């Protein structure tokens, strides 16, 4: 018995000695990153980490995370709430810094003033909670208007500057096309399913009418105002006319499905839809244009909601400095140029939008640059960890208005009351 025990102990020792011998140079550690898990996004992330590993001698492990952003957040929250040190570096959505703030380190000490200034101020501000930089911007997204250039040409219509121009153009085209036998033709598709996408869309409508961004920087709630009411009344009026009621169940991919199969005149979507609409095999290839989302009125403004992702270091990481260094490498100008060309990921650095190679690969990126300056930022920084509740109350109120269950004024007033209760009267 004893002999057997001694023999296995000896074997264990030998094994560990062997493993020790083949371990790489002293000081090399492994950094774990959770970034996009599918397709080109995963490949670009891996290549980026490989070049950092080669330069520093450390190793990087990529872990899979769910593809749907809601599920990804839930998983990250569970890992972080458990204080797990398994993942050092997280790819986080622009609306998460406030939600996850307590679990993330301040990156300011690793990312100096000059480096921060190379990114859009909107993004750095968005990622700064209580003076601490919680994530380095990696790539960005903004709401855009896609239109069928062939149909607008056919009926001699200009690209709409205001929402009412969009409505009359859409109605004109839909009526004519339906009369010509294309009964499926619909005027405008967007995201009005009861989910975060509706919050993005509704914020754009309200902001374009000058109705504000719901929460002031101090946390005060301003949702039930005349401009917001008229903005949402206008959108509710579209539904059932040139906008199909089905839009109330659409997310990004539903909207793209309708638009790309040639059944819609206009679409609101993120920049990713461009490359797919122009891909070989797309029925609308070469027939699509991109423009800023329309203004509320002559005195309104173009407003696109800001989306995108950044890299954040876990407070429970055993190697925060190295993780921050990897984040710095992945968000560097060279990496962003590479990612912009290979995968059309929109850079977070204004300078990259002037890069000739990037513009040659994706001409439309040049026009995104000015839109970024006026982007609508969701109030996640203000609502903090209550952002999901905030957004749910808001999108439910809007969904009720669009589906005709409630009048805009009543629904917004009720939502405002619920937001006051949630935020303990604006203290968040």
């Amino acid at each position, binding site marked *: 018995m004893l002999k057997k025990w001694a023999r296995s102990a000896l074997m264990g020792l030998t094994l560990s000695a062997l493993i020790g011998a083949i371990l790489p140079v002293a000081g090399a550690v492994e950094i774990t990153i959770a970034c996009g898990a599918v397709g080109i996004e995963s490949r670009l992330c891996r290549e980026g980490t490989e070049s950092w590993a080669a330069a520093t001698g450390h190793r990087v492990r990529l872990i899979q995370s769910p593809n749907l952003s809601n599920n990804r957040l839930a998983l990250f929250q569970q890992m972080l*709430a458990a204080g797990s040190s398994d993942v050092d570096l997280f790819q986080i959505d622009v609306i998460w810094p406030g939600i996850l703030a307590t679990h993330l380190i301040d990156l300011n000490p690793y990312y100096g003033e000059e480096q921060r200034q190379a990114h859009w101020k909107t993004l750095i501000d968005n990622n700064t909670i209580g003076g601490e930089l919680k994530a380095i911007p990696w790539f960005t997204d903004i709401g855009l208007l896609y239109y069928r250039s062939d149909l607008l040409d056919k009926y001699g219509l200009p690209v709409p500057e205001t929402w009412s121009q969009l409505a009359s153009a859409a109605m004109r085209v839909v009526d004519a096309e339906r009369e010509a036998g294309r009964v499926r033709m619909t005027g405008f598709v967007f995201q009005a399913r009861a989910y975060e996408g509706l919050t993005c869309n509704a914020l754009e409508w309200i902001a374009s009418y000058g109705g504000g961004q719901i929460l002031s920087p101090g946390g005060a709630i301003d949702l039930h105002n005349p401009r917001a009411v008229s903005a949402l009344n206008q959108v509710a009026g579209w539904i059932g006319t040139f906008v199909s009621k*089905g839009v109330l169940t659409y997310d990004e991919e539903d909207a793209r499905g309708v638009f790309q199969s040639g059944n819609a005149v206009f679409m609101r979507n993120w920049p990713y839809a461009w490359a797919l609409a122009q891909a070989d095999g797309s029925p609308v290839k070469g027939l699509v244009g991109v423009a800023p989302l329309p203004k509320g009125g002559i005195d309104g403004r173009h407003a696109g909601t800001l989306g995108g992702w950044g890299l954040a270091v876990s407070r429970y990481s055993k190697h925060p400095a190295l993780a921050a260094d990897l984040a710095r490498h992945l968000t560097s100008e060279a990496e962003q140029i590479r990612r912009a060309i290979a995968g059309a990921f929109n850079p977070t650095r204004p300078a990259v939008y002037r890069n000739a190679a990037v513009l040659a690969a994706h001409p439309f990126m040049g026009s995104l640059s000015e839109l970024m300056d006026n982007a609508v930022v969701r109030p996640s920084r203000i609502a903090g960890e209550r952002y999901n509740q905030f957004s749910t109350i808001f999108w439910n109120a809007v969904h009720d208005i669009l589906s005709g269950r409630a009048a805009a004024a009543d629904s917004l007033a009720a939502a405002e009351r619920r937001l006051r209760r949630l935020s303990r009267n604006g203290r968040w």
Partner: protein
Amino acid sequence: MWGIDPLMDSNSKPNVRRAVRVTAGAGLERWRVRTAWVFLAPTLAVLALVAGWPLLRTAMLAFTDAYLSRMAEARWVGLENFRWLLTDGDWWRSVQNTIVFTVASVSVQFVLGLGAALVLNVRFAGRGLLRAVVLIPWAIPTVVSARMWRWMYHDVYGVFNDLGLRSGLLAQPVAWLADDTTAMAAIVVADIWKATPFMALLLLAGLQAIPPGLYEAARVDGVGRLNAFVYITLPLLKPAILVALIFRTLDALRVFDLIYVMTSNAVSTASMSVYARQQLIDFQEMGYGSAVSLMIFFVIAVFVAAYVTAMRASLVEEG
């Protein structure tokens, strides 16, 4: 002869037991009980660990303001969570949605499932193959079939609108999942498609346990097919029917994936489980979410109690 064997077997058991008790006395009986407990112990331990403890913990959390990222700071808040919950219109809407969904889907599944079971119980060529084929909807993961149905209901490229427009039944495309009433109906239809095979399978098992001799005897006595169904099949199928209904009802009351995929968190169709998930996962409200889970437990318990009472009554009736 096959039908008679089990009867003989069950008759003989009590006699053996009585004989043992008489000869060996109380000591052996005690020993047997002890052995039974020893054999049951591992199962009970596992149950306590995987079912008892989580349930107890949920019950405890329901009275706190626990928040996922600050579990250590949870404070005791008494009945506060339940006060909020009982005054939340969205919660009561989800209870109503769940009950409407359950009653509508389970009753249709029962009628269709019984029909299918009766057909599959008849001898015909290819019956084995058909029995396997019917199970396909049940075998597809719900998330996949829900996504499939969502596409079929799509207002622009969905197959229902396509058929409706081509045949002239619809003047213009209908957004099935956008309207409150059609959305719930659409979800119920998808669930009927998915779970009817399961209902049929359970009922078929019940049908096969009915001794064929009874039907032969009935035929000899000149009983018609309808009467044979009403007076032989239904009474003997009752236990299987109750089991099938309990299974499906409990399943339907917990419905989550189908609704979540088809209409996500939309209040007008959200079930109790969708509401609970939103509180627990999206909002990280462990305390409040636990109170919700506990309430779901009670709602389901009411249904279970009703079924158990019905089952007992039917057993008493049979003597």
